[in-house]
């Protein structure tokens, strides 16, 4: 039988004065129960002791002692030891010396009880080779063999949606450029609100003869905590930002404050979502560069009205015609079916 008392101080001396608690004994499973920790070793505060002890007992039907040794609550001695500690900690009127004596007395009684139990039980040999001192605990652990959680298990990227903005959603409408107007269709492919982003395809018809229908991949920055109204890239100046955002009526209240450093727009719960859409490459062949008569070097200022399901946008590029307007509305299938994918 392993003798655990050896790692603890041999004498059951209680020294509350210097902060150490001692209750040395042997229980049926051979482990020291009473947290035999001297003043010069690891010390747990009284509050922590009682709290952690209670919670672990409730949750897992065993408790981990402050000495870091786990004990099965099936051990009668363990329970009585716990109770005695709780009791002592509550009797605050006692002097340290009185407390010491009280605890000592209890320990002596418990020691007798513990030894009585000790005689009855043999150490079980658990199949698989490992002997566990805590018989009952060892047995349960064998039955419920838990595996460690893989620390490199992928964090899920749950598909997110906000009203009509979800993977698989479609918008239809037109883009006006001068006197011309082109049919436009937008396919939303992925929405990641946590990353304040979404992406999709933008199909435009009749822009050039070479490509009667042109599809580009775009991604969106959703204005919010991650992206400010101030663009600071894609050749857009503060002036450009102002002159485009103010074209959207719901932007009005923010007109004078949107450049403030401390101003953050929260799109959650709002009826309007502002975005910047930036096209990146052609679909299906992303390697194609440069199309005569068409360019997607600029970006769109976007305003999405949730309750109407409508998107309004203005294209901006230094050398393109200004304020080309995009008007889209959500394509409602009747009735509507929803598939769902998730990145792994």
């Amino acid at each position, binding site marked *: 039988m*392993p003798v*655990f008392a*050896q*790692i603890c*101080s041999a004498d059951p001396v209680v020294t509350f004065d210097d*902060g150490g608690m001692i209750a040395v004994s042997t229980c049926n499973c051979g*482990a*020291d129960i009473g947290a035999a*920790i001297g003043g*010069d*070793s*690891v*010390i747990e*505060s009284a509050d*922590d002791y009682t709290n*952690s002890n209670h919670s672990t007992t409730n949750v897992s039907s065993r408790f981990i002692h*402050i*000495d*870091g*040794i*786990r004990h099965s609550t099936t051990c009668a001695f363990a329970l009585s030891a716990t109770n005695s500690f709780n009791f002592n900690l509550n009797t605050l009127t006692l002097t340290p010396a009185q407390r010491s004596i009280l605890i000592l007395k209890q320990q002596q009684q418990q020691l007798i009880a513990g030894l009585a139990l000790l005689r009855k039980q043999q150490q079980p040999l658990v199949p*698989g*080779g*490992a*002997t566990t*001192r805590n018989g009952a605990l060892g047995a349960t*652990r064998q039955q419920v063999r*838990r*595996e*460690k*959680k*893989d*620390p*490199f298990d*992928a*964090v899920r*990227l749950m598909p997110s949606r906000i009203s009509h903005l979800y993977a698989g959603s479609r918008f239809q409408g037109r883009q006006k450029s001068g006197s011309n107007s082109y049919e436009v269709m937008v396919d939303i*492919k*992925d929405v*990641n609100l*946590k*990353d304040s*982003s979404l992406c999709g395809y933008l199909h435009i018809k009749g822009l050039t003869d070479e490509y009667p229908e042109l599809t580009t*991949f775009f*991604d969106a920055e959703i204005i919010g905590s991650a992206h400010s109204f101030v663009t600071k890239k894609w050749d857009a100046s503060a002036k450009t930002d102002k002159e485009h955002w103010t074209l959207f009526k719901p932007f009005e209240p923010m007109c004078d404050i949107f450049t403030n450093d401390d101003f953050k727009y929260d799109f959650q719960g709002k*009826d309007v979502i502002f975005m910047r859409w930036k096209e990146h*490459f052609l*679909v299906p062949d*992303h390697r194609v560069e440069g199309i005569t008569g068409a360019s997607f070097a600029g970006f769109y200022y976007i305003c999405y009205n949730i309750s109407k399901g409508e998107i309004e946008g203005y294209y901006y590029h230094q050398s393109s015609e200004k304020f080309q307007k995009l008007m889209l509305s959500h394509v409602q299938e*009747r*009735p*509507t*079916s*929803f*598939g*769902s*994918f*998730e*990145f*792994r």
Partner: protein
Amino acid sequence: MTLTPHEVAVSQLATDQAVPLDRIKSLRFIKNNIIGNKTKKDLYIQLGIVSRLQDIISTKDDKDSQLKIQAVIVLGSFAFGNESNILALTNSGVVEPLLNCLNIVGDPKLIEAAARTLNAIYSSPKVSRQQLFMGNHLHVLVQLLDTFSNKHRPGQEIIQVHTAELVASILARCCETLEQQMQIADSGAIPLLMRLLASGVSKSQEAALGALAALVKDNPELAQVIAQMRLEKGERPAPFILRLVRDKSPTMRLAAATCLTYLNRAGVIPEHNSDIMLTVLPILVKMLQLTGSVQETAPQVLAHLIWESENMQKAVCDMEAIPKLASIISQMDEEDNVYGIVGQKDKLKENSLLALAAISQLKEDCRKQVIEAKVLSHIVSAMSHPSVGVRAAACQCTRSLSRSVKNLRTSLVDAGIENPLFQLLSDEDLGVLRSATATLCNIVLDVSPMKKTIMERGIVSKFVRMISYGDNVVRLNTVWAIKNLVFEAESDVKENVMRQFGYNNLVLLLNDSEPAVQEQALNLVRNLAHRREHDIEQVFKGLGNGQLLSIIEEKLSWDDPKLLEHALYVLVNIATGSEYHKQSILKRQGILRSVLRSMNHESPAIRVASIWVIINLTWPDDKVPDSVHECVTLLRSMGIEDRLLALNADHDLDVRDRVKTALQHFLADQQQYGHGNNSNNNNNNGVSSTTTRAMSTTTGMMSPDLTGSGNGRHSHMSSRHHNPQQPPQSNDPSASSSSGDAHGGSGGAGSAMDTTHIVTGRSGAGGGHDRR
């Protein structure tokens, strides 16, 4: 015949051959010969030295420990630096006699030598740890950690400290399973390790940190215990270890950072989150530019630390970790090409790839940086690396990078990940197979140009084999991949997949032992029944009408919101189908009651899904106006319209918008059919009051009695379902159940349905079954 001096030396070791002094001499001779000499080590092993050494250390004779000490040292020399030698030792059974040398009252020098040799042996993960946990060994080891009590002989303090450090290191190497961690904790090692940690001796502190880290790694229970303990001066361990992170020794810094990493991942030191961000992260990133074992381990610890935290990934990105990792990986490739050295720095490569995978897991900005660092071609070639660890880590990297529509359409196609990935799907290593199947999930999405080619290579025919592989993760990844593959796919693709995969396999997955697999399988059904009536019909045929809806009914009763949401969307999609498809839902009272209950679910997403079921079922259709009317009548009789009215005041915008649409359907029905026709036994006053409320709320004017409407309607319901010919105190169980709580409405509805003509068969006993 002549013997070489080596053969002579070995032969002199035999117990009956020579006087002890000669044997010690021989051992010294051998020791000096083999130190640092791999060829000589192999030679001696071939000469059978191991069993001779084993005999020596196994003798019970304790009078003179010199011989044993020399034998143990020679064994240690064999164990250093070569895994095949270690296995030669363990196969001969040296572990048990070595453990027996650890005797608390024995010669401290012998104990130290044995601990050193055991520590070297346990450096190989292939050595079984079982013996250490048998008998009294663990207990004795833990006693050796105690350098503070006066039980040991005086004058041996230094050797005792060395022994304790070695023991801590052995324990750190024996924490592979939860079981082992718990047994070591049970043995009382933790307080002694804490004392070692606070000892002020650098080497001891490092050893203690190593053991504590191993104990808390992926073990929240022990992490909690250790985080809550106190050191001598009443201090918690975490702030103490945080100071060690700034130590001048790199190995100490790494050991401390590792320990804090595991405590942080266990979520037990939330009060130190900012310390970890501001102190530990930059220190780990700086370590990438060191050399040797610190540089090798640091990226793995970094990956561990940031794996689940978007903020930390972003922070590491801002610290320019990506170019540093990229240059480690690409430089290594160049060195491989020049010198042909393979295998020496595998671990560094593997860990660096893992760190890149961690950084690019959640944020598109970070993925972009990885692509811009021009490291992708090296990642792709690492997918075919001889080391399994490197292959798996490279695959993890491509998995992180493929969580992006943009990358799927561009850089990943350009880098040609498809070929090596397809190869890895047949890899013999489980870890590789897991990460390869995970990556596959993203590659088969409709936005990925690689979907088509990988299908042409016959990916679908591999699915059946993959789900029967016997590993939960591989099975989960497979069903996930199929689900993604059929998302927005054409009908012929779906049919082709299901023909090869088999609906019988789908049924197995829908009833899988793992809820995560069930969730994906339900999502697969949802995607199969998506978009076209023809596709819905295929699922009905494949699973059988009855079985499909029985499965859905069962899943709707689960508490898991993810299962519930997919099950509801299966219904949403089926309800876009033919009249027959809709009717098959309407025939199921259990399903309708679950939908009604889900309309009150705490998650807005689930409320929206359940309202969509109603919207699609009640969609006005001029071709079959009567059946739509019957449907509306049935749903109204169940109390669904009332529930919708209550949801008019929902705090979620999306819910309110959907409610508006659904109520419009009820209103349209009301306008067309009026209240008189509603249903044979309906109470006309009650219905007309509903109509009034519906009209006022859909036009945006909240009816003043809306909040009280629940109770009013419930009493109305219970009065309605009582048959006037029966005495007023009916013993119908549903009468008492409709007494005002959320379930009351549906409780009454169970009976009310008896009175409608649509539902045939089931009786009002459903009122009792409603409460799960």
